[in-house]
């Protein structure tokens, strides 16, 4: 039971959490947003490369048991055909939205992605999950108090009716991206070709970073064939294309770059994002 004052206090806490431009009201009228701000709001939140930030103290961290177990669950769900890694990366790193992305611990987002995919794909009912969470919480009502953190499944299902993807069998003995080899046709670019990264509109997901869009680079390597991340992430058949490692001169890429004229950055980009540099 919570008190009225506790409920009000939590609402106050939530109201202070901001992920919006402070100069704009909540739910602004359409004429109050320009293209740049709409792009900023729609930007996949994982794409932080190049955003200004001040130095901070870097530390290592010992894992909580739940963090380690979360990593394991994610990998087992991939192994057993519940999701592709590309679904996990979108659900946990982008679909969570800016407030959760920046506000939660790293593995907190991974764990929410597990819950999300199992509910969205109809493996677990949300009420069923809430009830089980309440039950687990009740089990440890007085705190750990000498007990260990452990899962206590009431049974073990046979799993034969669980809907799974075909990825495990298609990639078995080959690996990923090797399982897509030979499916993309001829590569459009070769090593040394000058290219420009297209400025495609972005909603929902991409792994082509904002900091290279519109920039000129050079093909450093013809990497492999695979569906582009924004196509592979939706659990539906997607056509593989060639990926390239593209090299950019940092002084050209970033206005006011403070290193030397020769410093470079390379990143991997799928073919449909590239065009020949004029």
């Amino acid at each position: 039971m919570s008190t009225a004052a506790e409920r009000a206090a939590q609402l106050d806490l939530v109201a202070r959490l901001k992920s919006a431009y402070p100069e704009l009201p909540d739910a602004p009228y359409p004429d109050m947003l320009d293209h740049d701000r709409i792009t900023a709001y729609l930007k996949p939140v994982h794409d932080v490369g190049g955003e200004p930030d001040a130095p901070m103290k870097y530390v290592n961290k010992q894992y909580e048991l739940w963090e380690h177990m979360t990593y394991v669950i994610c990998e087992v769900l991939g192994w057993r055909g519940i999701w592709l890694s590309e679904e996990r990366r979108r659900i946990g790193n982008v679909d969570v939205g800016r407030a959760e992305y920046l506000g939660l611990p790293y593995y907190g987002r991974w764990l929410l992605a597990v819950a999300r995919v199992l509910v969205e794909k109809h493996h677990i009912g949300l009420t069923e999950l809430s009830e089980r969470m309440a039950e687990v919480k009740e089990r440890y009502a007085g705190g750990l108090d000498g007990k260990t953190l452990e899962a206590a499944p009431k049974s073990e299902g046979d799993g034969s009716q669980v809907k799974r993807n075909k990825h495990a069998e298609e990639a078995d003995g080959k690996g990923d991206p090797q399982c897509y080899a030979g499916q993309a046709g001829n590569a459009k670019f070769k090593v040394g070709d000058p290219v420009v990264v297209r400025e495609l509109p972005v909603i929902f997901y991409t792994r082509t970073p904002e900091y290279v869009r519109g920039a000129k680079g050079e093909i450093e390597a013809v990497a492999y064939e695979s569906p582009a991340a924004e196509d592979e992430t939706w659990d539906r058949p997607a056509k593989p294309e060639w990926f390239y490692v593209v090299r950019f001169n940092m002084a050209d890429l970033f206005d006011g770059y403070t290193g030397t004229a020769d410093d470079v950055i390379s990143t991997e980009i799928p073919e449909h994002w590239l065009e020949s540099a004029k």
Partner: protein
Amino acid sequence: MTDHDHDHDHERTVAPMVDEITDFEVLEIALRELCIEKGIFTAEEHRLMTEFAEQIGPTPAAHLVAKAWLDPEFKKLALAEPMTASKEVGVDWLHPTGWGTPSDFTAFQILADTPTVHNVIVCALCSCYPRPILGNSPEWYRTPNYRRRLVRWPRQVLAEFGLYLPDEITVHVQDSNQKHRFMVMPLQPEGTEDWTEEQLVEIITRDCLIGVALPKAGVTTNVITDTRPAIHPGAAG
């Protein structure tokens, strides 16, 4: 926590009087139980993946680099066929599923430093890292801070690790943002010419393989040693 070893813990927002379990612990246990009950995965599969995850670490990568320093033919193999070379240090990239670890994929490349080029890796979008051969990434590698800044201010970030590169050395940042996984092969430092593989492995730290440090005779620890302890620690990490 060398500079922070006093009793009270003012940095934690959650400082329970009783040893309460957290929201994430509750959610993780609930999900694991339901998955096993529904046969989404078995307890045995979960156990196998846990065992796999507990034994990965940076030691094979250090051996790979030491071998490459000692044997030019192996270095050629490591750069041309890095996953074949990985087998020589006990890492099969197709393990444990038969098609690799789902989050890491099976496209591995080693970036060899030269006298004029220094390589350093980052994943600006998440935390892509060659886990099968280097273990789990350090916490700082996953921070938005490192990811934001390394791609744009690499020399400043490297300086914060104590690595000051002269202008004659070109910085090559590798943003591993898709399916490739990268690791750095630094140059063998002076004064180690007659060392054995075991001696060399000691100075090839994880940080050297990320590219935020250079190996040096006598330096056997990572640059960042401060470690935030867990409240309910797990086995690995």
